[in-house]
């Protein structure tokens, strides 16, 4: 039996393999031209480019498994095993898309409201560490004040680092001299700024772009309109690295500074 299979398994010739390679290349070029701005086809296609690209990729997929992987010439059982796995994978994909995105391509409401960004998966651990740190009684120290201002029209603070002793009463006066941009100043542990800012987006301007009850926020000023200033007073937390950041959407990437507690 095995001997028989050996003989029925004939492979395409060198020229046929070259032809197959050229076809695969050609399809890839067509795919690229379909989405490349320079070719100008993409503007005419609109949403119909998606089924077209999926079809072309399925053609390439089929050519490779039929000819390069010899399924066209090999025993059908082998192909069936593979197709069964492929089919199951498709079903898993459809099931997941159905569960999280909803059939009919409608709103991603469930996932949009409930999906948790990857990094927040570790949040629980971080919170535990922070809470153990804060249980150490802070050493009382004299009050300190800082004047921080936004750097003109730029999305940056004029101050890049401040420091205070743990337990000290810290007062920060924040001035926003910009002619248009709104800013705030939020104190968080180093590394939390982008997450806090991301969670502040759905909270909106009414909540100063800070999630209400966010335990990662140590202190924050109100959202300051252009040309105004505000003040925030808080007790310096346990010694460690902290940051001050503007959580107005997008500002957190460039507008922040270091706050060291000794």
């Amino acid at each position, binding site marked *: *039996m*095995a*001997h*028989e*299979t*050996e003989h029925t398994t004939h*492979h395409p010739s*060198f020229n046929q*393999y*070259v032809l197959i*390679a050229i076809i*695969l*290349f050609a399809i*890839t070029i067509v*795919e*690229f031209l*379909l*989405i*490349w701005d320079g070719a100008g086809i993409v503007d005419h296609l609109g949403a119909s480019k998606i089924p077209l*690209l*999926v079809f072309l*990729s399925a053609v*390439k*997929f089929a050519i*490779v*498994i039929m000819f*390069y*992987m010899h399924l066209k010439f090999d*025993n059908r*059982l*082998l192909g069936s*095993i*593979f*197709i069964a*796995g*492929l089919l*199951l*994978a*498709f079903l*898993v*994909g459809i099931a*997941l898309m159905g569960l999280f*995105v909803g059939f009919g391509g409608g709103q*991603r*409401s469930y*996932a*949009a*409201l409930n*999906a948790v*960004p*990857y*990094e927040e998966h*570790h949040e629980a651990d971080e919170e535990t560490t922070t809470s153990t740190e804060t249980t150490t009684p802070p050493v009382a120290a004299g009050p300190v004040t800082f004047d921080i201002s936004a750097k003109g029209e730029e999305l940056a603070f004029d101050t890049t680092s401040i420091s205070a002793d743990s337990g000290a009463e810290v007062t920060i006066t924040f001035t926003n001299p910009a002619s248009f941009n709104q800013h705030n100043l939020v104190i968080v542990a180093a590394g939390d700024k*982008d997450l806090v*800012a*991301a*969670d502040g*987006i*759905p909270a909106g301007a009414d909540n100063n772009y800070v999630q209400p009850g966010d335990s990662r926020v140590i202190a924050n000023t109100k959202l300051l309109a252009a040309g105004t200033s505000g003040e925030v007073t808080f007790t310096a937390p346990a010694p460690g690295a902290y940051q001050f950041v503007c959580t107005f959407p997008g500002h957190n*990437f460039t507008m922040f500074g270091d706050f060291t507690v000794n």
Partner: protein
Amino acid sequence: MAHAAEHEYTTTGLSHRKMLMWVFLGSDCLFFGSLIATYMVYRGQSLVGPYPIDIIDVPLTTVSTFVLLMSSFAMVQALAATNADNKKATVIWLLATAALGAVFIGFQIYEFNAFKNEGLTLGGNLFGASFFTLTGFHGAHVTLGIIWLVAIAILAAKGRVGSKNALDVELLGLYWHFVDIVWIVIFTLLYLIGGFDVGPVIPGG
């Protein structure tokens, strides 16, 4: 080994090793299918950047896709040379396949590094998490294939690979082509279709 396999009795008349390879590939479909489905579910859900439109370089990846397709062509030539008992050609085509695979990995390392510099990390946002997990596991498959290719090339150079045990090369080829077709799917979904995604889907927005 192939000699032994020819005398091996199996109820299907097919080589156990070949059957096992196809079962593995079928199960690997599920593995990648789940990762691809995860990417598609999380598509457009990142609340912080960078987003695909900011960093995905389609022309660059089209070139690396060409390289991987070319390596599949080299792989079929390696099997043809093995069946023809052409030792020199077998070694050359196997090493050519490995080299093209290595070029593909080089592109991926360059891409990952460029993305990292742009702020896309595994833990930064959903896009980064699902993108790096999927393409990273694919890259790991390619890397494993390269090691396998080099190992068989060394055996071939020692004259221990020929038409009698061509199955060794055929199984390697099946694995290599599978890695290629997975990339065909990833390239279409993550680059050609998903590479132009902008911004997040904000709840209520």
